[in-house]
């Protein structure tokens, strides 16, 4: 991973706004899907695909590529949009999300779309699959890295902790987990539905390195990944504290947006807000 210069950082921040706009447009077109998670995780996806990952969108099966495993598959709109912008498939294809005959399934399906590493949606299964890839890399003496993105809510699944226990015991140090700590899940706030805290202490007890960051700060995230790459004999978790619905005021921190898409009016307001962020206020009637 190269150093993150100021100029590149600004470029990534601009790109993140573009991704958020495309997420809103894509969700509006799809008519169903999740809003809050994708917007909250946009900065991290942007940093992965445009700075961190060693990958080639034109060769999605390149054996030496870094693996990005999305465990909480329901936030796939952000992955699809970022992949399209990175050149994995035409941006136009985003309009097919959740529709018949599409490669963009409502939850990601590996064999449908080149560039996806797993099939996901049912929660709690991503870390284990990432461990499998990490073990294969070690057996083959390859130095590609495996990143797995998880949600906080899926830490209520037993499988998540089975995987955490295994990775700690086996010192899977070519694996980095990034948890989207946005505090919401379908039924409400995580600490009301089923408390997860203290997450940091839990992971430390499972022999993981733990780094807490602001998940909507690209520089902080990139630096955390750099730190994680230097850690040996342990897996690392980056607990990314994100704002669900980030960038759209009426979606931010409201769990009602976990599993809903915007309607036309809401999308218009959202896009207006995002364009303001970009400093490019244009007519809503364009």
């Amino acid at each position, binding site marked *: 991973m190269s150093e993150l210069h100021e100029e590149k950082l600004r470029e990534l921040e601009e790109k993140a706004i573009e991704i958020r706009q495309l997420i809103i447009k894509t969700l509006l077109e799809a008519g169903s899907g999740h809003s809050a998670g994708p917007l909250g995780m946009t900065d991290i996806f942007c940093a992965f695909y445009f700075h961190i990952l060693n990958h080639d969108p034109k060769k999605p099966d390149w054996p030496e590529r870094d693996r990005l495993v999305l465990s909480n598959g329901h936030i796939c709109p952000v992955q699809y949009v970022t992949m399209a912008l990175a050149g994995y498939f035409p941006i136009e294809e985003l309009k097919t999300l959740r529709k018949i005959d599409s490669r963009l399934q409502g939850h990601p399906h590996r064999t449908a779309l080149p560039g996806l590493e797993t099939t996901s949606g049912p929660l709690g299964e991503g870390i284990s699959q990432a461990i499998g890839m990490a073990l294969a890399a070690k057996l083959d003496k390859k130095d590609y890295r495996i990143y797995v993105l998880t949600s906080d809510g899926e830490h209520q699944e037993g499988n998540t902790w*089975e995987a955490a*226990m295994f990775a700690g015991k086996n010192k899977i140090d070519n694996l980095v987990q990034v948890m989207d700590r946005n505090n919401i899940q379908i039924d409400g706030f995580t600490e009301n539905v089923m408390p997860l805290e203290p997450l940091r202490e839990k992971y430390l007890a499972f022999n993981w390195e733990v780094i807490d960051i602001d998940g909507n700060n690209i520089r902080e995230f990139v630096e955390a990944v750099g730190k994680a790459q230097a850690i040996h004999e342990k897996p690392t978790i980056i607990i990314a504290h994100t704002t669900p619905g980030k960038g759209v005021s009426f979606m931010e921190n409201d769990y009602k947006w976990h599993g809903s898409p915007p309607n036309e009016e809401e999308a218009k307001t959202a896009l207006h807000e995002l364009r303001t962020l970009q400093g490019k206020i244009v007519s809503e009637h364009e």
Partner: protein
Amino acid sequence: MLNPALKLNQKIFDKNVEVVPTRKGYGDALEKLGEVNPNIVVLCADLTDSTQCAKFAEKFPERFIECGVAEQNMAAIAAGLGVSGKIPFISSYATFSPGKNWETIRTTIVYNQSNVKIAGHHSGIVTGPDGATHQATEDIASVRAWPLIKIVIPCDSNEAFRATEASVDIEGPIYLRFTRDKTPVITTDKTPFDINHAQIYWLGKNPQATIFGTGHLLYYALVAASELEREKIDVDVVNVATIKPIDEVTIVSSAEKSGAVVTVEDHQITGGLGSAIAEVLSRNKPLPMEYIGLQDTFAESGKPAELIKKYKMDDEAIIEAVKKVIKRK
């Protein structure tokens, strides 16, 4: 008579016929595969000895992955290995894998088309004294409903060895079903194994019924056939080792010839071999059928032979079913 072309064990009807658990064939095959194929990886969930992984674990420790008592984690780790060029075998009791981790396997292995081989051990009521909690009797039904998977149920330890070996040559997920108890060796080293085709193990001169069997109970089907021959009732006995995809051609032609069918399996009669045969025949040539298997009940603790008798899966029960089905023609 035993089909001479298949070179089956001629001592099968002897009182002291050799008995070996099918799981041993699995363990022996893993050991051999480990030598010849560096991509074979074996995962286990705290049942290394009883699922016969110990020899592989000892010889290839770097390729043996102990997951502890965590079947979901085992399945999904294997899924990750399987999409990364490895050929993982996951080994546990079938009630736990593919039982407890059913959805994990569905999503991460089957739908995801990861090249994982699922070994379900301790299947059927012949698991015996451990009781119904450990006797997998719905696993075929729950796995058979999945698209994109193959299912092989070896009838003895030789076939278990061959099926395990053959599974490596098939890209994609496969379910292999094994038993704990020592069961009669039906085949020999010279018996051809064909993962794609059902094979006629017993040829009746003028068959009045066809017995389709799978797994270790095939032995009782053969014993029944030989006893029926003495009563001048000819039957064919077909070994349906591969339940999915099922060999429609052999099944339809054999059933058509005799005009009546009995299915035999150590599994619930719902959703397993019997259902699979009924699906084939109802589409092609509906015929009277009788089902040997667990009749919509859980079994219990006991010696395997006692359980087979009590739950009516032995030669006596099969003979009765054959006579009944012939009357229904």
